[in-house]
């Protein structure tokens, strides 16, 4: 999946990937896609949940050893 920005969260556990996602998404424009690369499996459940909480759109997961989750910014 194509993304406008990528966030490296390799080696980080909950809550840091979510904390960093919330920080970095501010730099994106509405409609842009953020890719979060992580190796903590929790992200696969946590990111959709975070999107439910914040209203951003969860686009999906890709796994190739590393876990890549995609979020579309839907509002400021």
């Amino acid at each position: 999946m194509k993304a406008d920005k990528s966030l490296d969260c390799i080696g980080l556990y909950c809550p840091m990937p979510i904390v960093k996602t919330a920080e970095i998404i501010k730099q994106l424009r509405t409609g842009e896609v953020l890719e979060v690369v992580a190796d903590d499996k929790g992200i696969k459940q946590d990111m959709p949940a975070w999107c439910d909480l914040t209203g951003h759109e969860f686009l999906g997961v890709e796994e190739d050893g590393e876990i890549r989750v995609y979020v579309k910014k839907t509002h400021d």
Partner: protein
Amino acid sequence: MVESSKLSEKESPKTKEEAKKEKLTLVVFSGDLDKTLAAFILATTAASSGMDVSMYFTFWGLNVLKKNEGGIKSKGLMRKMLNFINRGGSKRLTLSKYNMMGMGTWMMKGLMKDVNIPSIDEFITMSHKMGVKMIACTTSCGVMGVPEDSFRSEVEILAGAAYFLREARDADITLFI
């Protein structure tokens, strides 16, 4: 008609943001390293999810907020003794289990550092920057002889039970840790 529906569509994200924010309140009764860690993980995640967060520190929880440096200037022998053996400070917290004279805590801190988990000290700074409200319980301060100047600068409010209950009444989630 068309115009008004367009308008409401356009404004819907704004209205969502303007609507009452969801809120998490935590009572941090424990001054244990492990339990405090759980509290801060929830607090920072909630703040990152756009929620308002209030943490109410009482009894042993006050230890989390005590400054790491300097002494606690209590009045009276009993309270002086209490704050000597129960010095507190985010860097002095110990595990609720397997502290083993500090060995267990030292090991756990090492394990946490190894996987990049922030320390309690870092969590306090981070939470404060994210707008988490940290409140110290005045009754506990009185009973245990902890003067206001014992607390780090991130503590902005000293208050009692009524203040917490008002916070909790407006909250969607409240936990006692």
